[in-house]
């Protein structure tokens, strides 16, 4: 297995991009990544593109194949990957494996979602298809609702407070304010968070990410070739990919995500590092409580202590481990299929000392992508080459 490097990244801004279609956004992000990589387009040998709901929300399927055409790369294999909100992370991992296993030398990875053209009730229904329809979602449970059930249990079991959970939103909005790619560029106060509109008790509006459009992309090649293209290649140190329970009722403990635990242990083992070695993390804050749970499941803090960690400032930019310097899903936005690759975009910028909210001296970075209520997760560990 060869070592893999990232030699170019690109991202559209995230937001309600009314005049931009789904194919157009994917093409734009891919072109930016290609330009940065300086790889001529005829050298790209495969595209892996993450997308969750293109058919339903943008009337567009067959995305990967159409995008390679619009990039002037018709002929190469193109694969659309789906794993709910982990669609982008899965695309990235497959791209890495393609190079590591020696199938390809140059791979383009992307992720895209177009969500703002559909009414909210339709977006809510589309997101709910990430859950098990016959076994759970037919009850009328929504994704905010599922995390409302999870949040209530985490608070009851560990004493995690409404204020601690709210501080995740305050932190992430504060960071997003400085990120030119972020959908929300305005800090919020704890008071605003805890008095925002109820979506699915106890989940409130500012506990949630927005409905977003956007795309992100990356160019990968073998580490041994990377310096022909860039002075600052980023090295993929390890990846993990795992599944977990598909519904809340089949989970032994809804306050932990076994898929995150398993995928992260696989990535840590491949990278030969421990959680304490990680300097900066882009994790899946699909809701504020999801960030707290992820910091525990990734082994950054003990079980039940994630709330205290954010309250103590341990996950702030200058804290023990910087969590979501981009502003996270909550502030940067969550175009579902793009998110996993957008996390890679931010972490590559961090490891090149080019990030908007730069973590000083960041050496080891971790991306955590999660689908559904934990049915699938990918974890990626990156380092300087």
């Amino acid at each position: 297995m060869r070592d893999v490097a990232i030699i170019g990244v690109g991202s559209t801004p995230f937001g309600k991009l009314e005049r931009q279609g789904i194919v157009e956004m994917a093409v734009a992000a891919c072109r930016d990544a290609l330009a940065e990589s300086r790889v001529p387009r005829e050298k790209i040998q495969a595209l892996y593109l993450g997308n969750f709901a293109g058919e339903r929300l943008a009337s567009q399927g067959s995305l990967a194949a159409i995008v390679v055409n619009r990039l002037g790369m018709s002929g190469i294999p193109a694969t659309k990957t789906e794993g709910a909100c982990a669609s982008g992370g899965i695309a990235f991992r497959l791209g890495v494996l393609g190079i590591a296993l020696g199938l390809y030398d140059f791979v383009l990875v992307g992720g895209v979602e177009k969500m703002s053209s559909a009414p909210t009730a339709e977006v809510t229904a589309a997101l709910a298809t990430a859950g098990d329809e016959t076994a759970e979602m037919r009850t009328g449970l929504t994704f905010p609702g599922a995390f409302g059930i999870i949040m209530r249990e985490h608070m009851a079991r560990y004493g995690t407070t409404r204020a601690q959970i709210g501080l995740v939103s305050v932190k992430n909005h504060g960071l997003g304010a400085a990120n030119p790619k972020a959908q929300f560029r305005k800090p919020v106060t704890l008071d605003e968070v805890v008095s925002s509109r109820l979506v699915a008790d106890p989940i409130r509006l500012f506990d949630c990410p927005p409905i977003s459009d956007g795309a992100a992309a990356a160019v990968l090649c073998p580490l041994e070739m990377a310096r022909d293209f860039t002075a600052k290649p980023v090295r993929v140190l390890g990846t993990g990919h795992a599944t977990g329970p598909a519904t809340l009722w089949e989970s032994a403990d809804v306050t932990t995500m076994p898929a995150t635990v398993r995928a992260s242990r696989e990535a840590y083992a491949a990278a030969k590092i421990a959680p304490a070695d990680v300097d900066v993390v882009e994790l899946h804050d699909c809701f504020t409580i999801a960030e707290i749970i992820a910091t525990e499941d990734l082994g950054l803090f003990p079980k039940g202590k994630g709330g205290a960690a954010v309250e103590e400032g341990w996950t702030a930019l200058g804290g023990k481990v910087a969590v979501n310097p981009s502003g996270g899903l909550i502030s940067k936005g969550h175009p579902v299929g793009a998110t996993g690759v957008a996390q890679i975009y931010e972490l590559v910028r961090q490891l090149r000392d080019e990030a908007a909210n730069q973590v000083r001296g960041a050496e080891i970075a971790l991306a955590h992508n999660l689908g559904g209520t934990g049915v699938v997760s990918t974890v990626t560990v990156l380092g300087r080459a």
Partner: protein
Amino acid sequence: MPALAGRRCAECGRLSVAASACPFCGAVGGQSVELSGRGRLQSFTIIRIAPARYAAEAPYAVGLVALDEGATITARVSGAPESLTLGQAVTLASVDARCGPVFQPA
């Protein structure tokens, strides 16, 4: 009095609620178990922004019900949503064709 059908899996031994095969290991067959419909509210949420098909019914509560027999089910809980409390005893009230079993405070 509506009944809740359960299954004790012959292969993995786990108890589950109304499915054609064991949701944990996929085995078919196993033993039919009639469940009492009684349980406790392990957790719940109140859906205020609903998917299109249930928009007219919002706000409504959905809970994780820990049944007395040891299985857990995700289900609608009827009654005033704001009056629900964690750990509260609930019983099966009805089975709706669209949203499945509906529980109510005991």
